[in-house]
């Protein structure tokens, strides 16, 4: 047994509540993201299931336009980059990078939601029009809600940064919110491919 080999009689030091990838907080966020990923996976399954069962053309409302969705996708991707830049900043002790990066991420996230709102208002159907419309609004709506939650967490992290809670060694909240934000971005890529691109292939 490997453990017996390494259990030698030497004293050693143990850190208290480390904040790196060994922390329980990090494990918690990873598992939350896992179950959230499953949540979206079942929605995407439902989308393809109903698409495969559809009589007539899919989507019944015509192809969803890319005019707003494509730039919006790029905005969200860039917001992941700015968050990554902010987080790696605080890892090296740069509060300036953290503050600027978080603020940029916040603004990009707000822009994403506003453009999404504009796109909704251009749709000539409502969630109650047919099953496709229900899927479209529910899936993008839940994704939008996740973006909104991510923005709230972003604001809380910014307030805590101004109160001086973070340092190069201790910034678990930043890391966890960053993880969540990258996840919300990744979900959008899947939603975008499924809802906007996949109908064009087949």
């Amino acid at each position: 047994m490997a453990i017996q080999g390494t259990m030698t009689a030497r004293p050693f030091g143990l850190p208290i509540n480390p904040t790196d990838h060994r922390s329980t907080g990090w494990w918690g966020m990873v598992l939350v993201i896992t179950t959230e990923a499953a949540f979206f996976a079942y929605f995407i399954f439902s989308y393809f299931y109903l698409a495969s069962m559809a009589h007539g053309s899919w989507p019944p409302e015509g192809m969803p336009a890319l005019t707003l969705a494509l730039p919006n996708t790029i905005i969200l991707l860039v917001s992941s980059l700015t968050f990554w830049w902010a987080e790696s900043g605080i890892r090296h002790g740069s509060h300036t990078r953290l503050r600027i990066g978080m603020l940029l991420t916040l603004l990009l996230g707000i822009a994403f939601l506003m453009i999404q709102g504009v796109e909704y208002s251009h749709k000539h159907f409502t969630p109650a029009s047919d099953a496709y419309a229900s899927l479209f609004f529910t899936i993008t709506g839940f994704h939008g809600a996740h973006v909104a939650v991510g923005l709230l967490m972003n604001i809380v992290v910014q307030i805590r940064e101004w109160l001086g809670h973070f340092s190069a060694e201790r910034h678990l909240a930043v890391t966890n919110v960053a993880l969540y934000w990258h996840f919300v971005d990744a979900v959008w890529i899947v939603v975008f491919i499924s809802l906007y691109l996949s109908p064009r292939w087949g």
Partner: protein
Amino acid sequence: MAITTEAEAPTDRLREIWETPRGLLGTFTTVDHKTIGKRYLVTAFIFFLIGGLEAAAMRAQLAHSGQHLLSPEAYNQLFTMHGVTMLFLFASPILSGFANYLWPLMIGARDMAYPRVNALSYWTFLMSGLFLNSSFLVGQAPDGGWFAYVPMTERAFSPGLNIDFYTLGLIFLGISSTVGAINFITTFFKLRAPGMSINRVPIILWGTLTTSFAIVFAMPALTVACIMLFFDRRFGMHFFDAANGGHPLLWQHLFWMFGHPWVYIVVLPAIALASDMIPTFCRRPLAGYTFVVLSTITTMILGFGVWVHHMFATGLPQLSADFFSASGMVISIASGVAIFAWIVTIWNGKPVFKVPFFFLAGFIVLFVIGGVNGVMTASVPFDWQLTDSYFIVAHIHYVLIGMNVFPVFAALYYWLPKMTGRMLSERLGRWVFWTMFVGFNVAFFPMHITGMLGMPRRIYTYQPGLGWDTANLISTLGAYVFAIGVLLFLVDFFRSLRVGELAGDNPWDAPTLEWSTSSPPPPYNFAVMPTVRSPYPLWEKRLGEREYSDLHAGAVLDTGRETFGTSALDSEPEEVLRMPEDSLWPVLLSLSLLVLFYGLLTSLWWLAIVGAGGLFVTMVGWLWPTDITSPSPPRSVVSIARGA
């Protein structure tokens, strides 16, 4: 920090650090896993009694043909709430209760990884259970069966609040299951005592870990399905509406992607509890530890691939049905491994026939019957004859009562002495077992026959002259005998609290760590942190192990609420985890959820917004750090001697 012996450990100081103050505030703020575990057990058992009363009313109605004690509407609500209560509010939470109480004691830790999340999980379970049952107060309990098939549950056919209680209540309860599962997973991988590598943990940890992963992946399917049904009903969407591009079978797919794993979620930990108790009563280690663990995991994974066997009668393509039929049969091989492991253990051991062992033996018999009639229904042509008949009612009860209730009762007789400090009665306990075992078989075995005679499930009454009367009367009598057994257990329980024999630390001469603590254990669980060197730390001498675990000397960790964080597989100490203090946030967060869900139920959007706002405020308050005194980490270094 040096090695301290148990006698030298500052137990007064530890008690001061870990004990929750008595009184109203302590009641709502405690995060002690033992208190939470006991609350889970008591609450789940009360739901078991409520579900039992619902069943008793139904059996009274069915005792004879043509009875009208209950209206069809009342009967529909009763069988639905019976299923929902037993499956969601009893079978799974009672196992969470055992796991919450036992895990830290079994792995030599002082609490779960997220003590406050543990409290949140309990409060949310309680409040979602109250939410679901509050539907009776307005006379609109869910009435679409526990799987609530559309289109019958769509607004057009069910305009009341009944199904809204169901969809929202299950989303609500799902939050409790999910956060609980995440807590178990992290606890398993981070908090095991030094030296307790993954091949040395009690089987219940594997059982709960496996099902926790299953909850993380399966629960969202139910949540998604319930959200869609709620949107269909409330906002006129069309997910399941065939006239507008939706499909009713989408509900069935999503429900059973969740529902079939759920069956394993409520039986695998119970089976694992059996694997931990059987060695004690056979006086020898479990045969094939690794195979039992692997069969648990394999059964769960396969459990995700069989959901369609609930849908054989829906006109699926033949090939698809064949595939799911085959995978259903393969499961019986995986789950059979555990049975053989127990038989070998019993065969090679010297069984001691105490009350828990009676329940375990009864459980093995029922497991085999429930498995066999399960394999029968996995066969497509046979299933076509039996689906929606009383044969299925017999099958699910053999599975759920046989594989959940019987091991749970064994576990109650086995571990209650640890929790209360007093033994239950050996004599009364045998009466409890035989009454329950005989009553159960008399009640449910005849249902195989009524099913084959063509009696459909979920009918509120039936015509005379169909040949179902005698069998139904026998079933009703058996059900009441079973109920008497449960009441006898309650008598035994309350008697033992007052006059039960004192249990002592280890009344069963059992091998695992929880029995090295006092009964009941102190608030801090262990005065010194144990180091583990075998799967059966208390049996090492008699098993002739080369190395002994250190149970009476180790680190104290008394500068706050602290426990060891260890590596995921080999359990080497990596850090000292500082645990949170008692907190009011969990109960406030659950209350916010309750407000939110009542707001959604009643379409009072301001109420929903109040709930959501409360949710945000409590989450920020919860996560706001309490030790911001220094922005740099408190890197005080703790040294212990590693190993012997």
